[in-house]
């Protein structure tokens, strides 16, 4: 068991290393002239050379690589080409906004997706399951940024039901966790809680609609497959009713592949966050990356890539750790 966990950990570290190297290659080796971007459009060769020197871009590649790696190990993400400020703190201050958004979205779509998937399988061939199937199809086919905008326009601007940008209108609550919803509850600031929650609704819906179908479809498929297993017959022979069979037997077995999928989906969610943050001007790392894109700020872009990927790898590592707890067969193999 410990060996299994160790192997997973080593694998994760190896992957992270690959990722970091990949981003270095992307930001230092591929761009034809990163210094040109920094020096500006009208810079002459002298200014470009000066810019290159000041950013250390004229040093040998492996030297730059070593600096990059050691910098990351210390949490130093380098200097932004655009703002000339350290990237690390900037990302850190933007991170809570994204985390709050992603956290609620993940939780809601996991519960919604798995729940709907279960109903879909349970009520196979009935109208409810056809409806869910239709919803899933449409949900997956929606371009998330477009749907976010459509909601922004029709539910926000036209109907005035929801705010259309930002995290809050009132002053944010005292900073404890960085989550405005939690912080406002912890400080007893009820109006702030309402305000923050209301601002979360549309962005979370956009992300959930886009993702819940994946969880639903996998749960449905997994449940249907489990329902064909021999132990279902055994349970019925004992006199178990449909509810006991589904919830007591089938579901606990069907949930395993779903847990792995939820981990993977988290990665897609992170990608979708960039799009949603842009639409709602949500001050997270997604919009930070977007702004960095507009100015070809490679270090910033790569920093966000590394951070998001680290998050993704960590989540999947957690899934790998949780999996044996849930499924005794894996526990035995591990």
């Amino acid at each position, binding site marked *: 068991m410990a060996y299994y966990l160790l192997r997973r950990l080593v694998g994760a570290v190896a992957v992270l290393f690959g990722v970091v190297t990949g981003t270095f290659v992307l930001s230092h080796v591929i761009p034809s002239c990163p210094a040109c971007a920094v020096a500006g459009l009208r810079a002459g060769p002298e200014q470009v050379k000066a810019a290159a020197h000041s950013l250390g871009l004229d040093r040998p590649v492996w030297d730059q690589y070593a600096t990059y790696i050691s910098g990351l190990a210390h949490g130093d993400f380098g200097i932004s080409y655009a703002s000339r400020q350290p990237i690390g703190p900037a990302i850190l201050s933007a991170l809570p906004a994204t985390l709050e958004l992603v956290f609620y979205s993940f939780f809601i779509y996991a519960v919604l997706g798995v729940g709907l998937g279960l109903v879909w399988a349970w009520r196979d061939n009935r109208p409810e399951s056809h409806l869910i199937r239709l919803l899933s199809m449409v949900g997956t086919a929606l371009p998330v940024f477009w749907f976010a905008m459509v909601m922004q326009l029709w539910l926000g601007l036209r109907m005035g039901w929801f705010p259309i940008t930002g995290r809050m209108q009132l002053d944010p609550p005292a900073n404890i966790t960085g989550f405005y919803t939690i912080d406002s509850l912890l400080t007893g600031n009820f109006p702030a809680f309402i305000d923050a929650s209301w601002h979360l609704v549309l962005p979370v819906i956009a992300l959930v609609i886009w993702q819940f179908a994946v969880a639903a479809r996998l749960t449905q498929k997994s449940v249907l497959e489990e329902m064909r*297993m*021999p*132990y279902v*017959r*055994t*349970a*019925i*022979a*004992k*006199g*178990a*009713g449909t509810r*006991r069979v589904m919830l007591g*037997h089938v579901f*606990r*077995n069907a949930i395993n592949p779903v847990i792995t999928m939820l981990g993977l989906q988290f990665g897609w969610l992170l990608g979708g966050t960039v799009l949603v943050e842009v639409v709602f001007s949500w001050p997270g790392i997604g919009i930070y990356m977007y702004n960095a894109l507009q100015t070809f700020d490679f270090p910033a872009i790569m920093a966000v890539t590394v951070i998001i990927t680290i998050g993704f790898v960590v989540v999947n590592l957690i899934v790998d750790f949780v999996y044996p707890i849930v*499924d*005794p*067969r894996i526990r*035995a193999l591990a």
Partner: protein
Amino acid sequence: MAQASVCSVSDLSVAYHSGDGWLQAVRTVSFDVRRGEILAVVGETGSGKSTTATAVIRMLPANGRVISGSVMFDGRDLLGLSTGEMRKLRGQQIAYVPQQPMSAFNPTMTIGRQVAEPLVIHRGVSYTKAAPEAGRRLKEMGIHEVTRVMRSYPHQLSGGMLQRAMIATAMICQPRLLILDEPTSALDVTIQRQILSLIKQVQADYQLAVVLISHDLTVVSQVADRILVMYGGRGVEVGSTQELMTAGRHPYTRGLLRSTMSSGVEHKSRLPSLSGYPPNPQEVDREPGCPFRPRCARAVSECGEKFPPGTFQDGHGWACYNPEPLS
């Protein structure tokens, strides 16, 4: 000694819906199971024996239907009961032990929970309250390290132990009728004997009515009191084990007997076997008459026209126009 009949099946016919039509798997099968006796239902794959058993407890797959007949248990026709009433009987009054114990258990649940489950379902008690009883049953079925086994998962136990646990599960509510589907097919020969004697013992201790389904006549002849032989969805012969083994009248029964090692076969002579292959349901559906006719050495013209009516003599019955003579 004629005991009360616990379960009485009359003219049971079952069909499966497949593709664009219906295939009949069981045709007008009738039999009785009495208290304190083991009835074996013997036949090759496709004979309809498992379907018959599944139909009795109303656990046919979604594409199966009982077309006609009745299954009397406790004075009620099981086929006419509501779903809820039937559910109350399963696991409590009528127990079913499925094939292949290794796959019949839920792989992510401990054995203890699964053995105690019928109690939890029918008596409404919590697992903690039911656990001691489950432990007692496991012990009764010959399992020694009861605590360890109850905490184990199916993949950690051997086939023989799993089968014992399965029988314990079936017996935990003390049913009146026990149906076992191929209880020894997936096990080693030595374990087979153990399980068979376990079944015999349980039956004797509780005076159960037992239906034992098998394709193996030798296995069955060791424990069964009466045997029903099925072929191509029909019951072709029924009688006490003694009668069938020594004086079987249907050519198929005789054929089965001749092809087993236990009947007086001369050393080094060729083992006689039934020629041909067992029929598939589509063939049987198409051809009228007796399904055994293509392989039967004693076939006469009537055999191809209509299935023979049953002849009965003191509890020994057979369906044949040209039965084997008594020898």
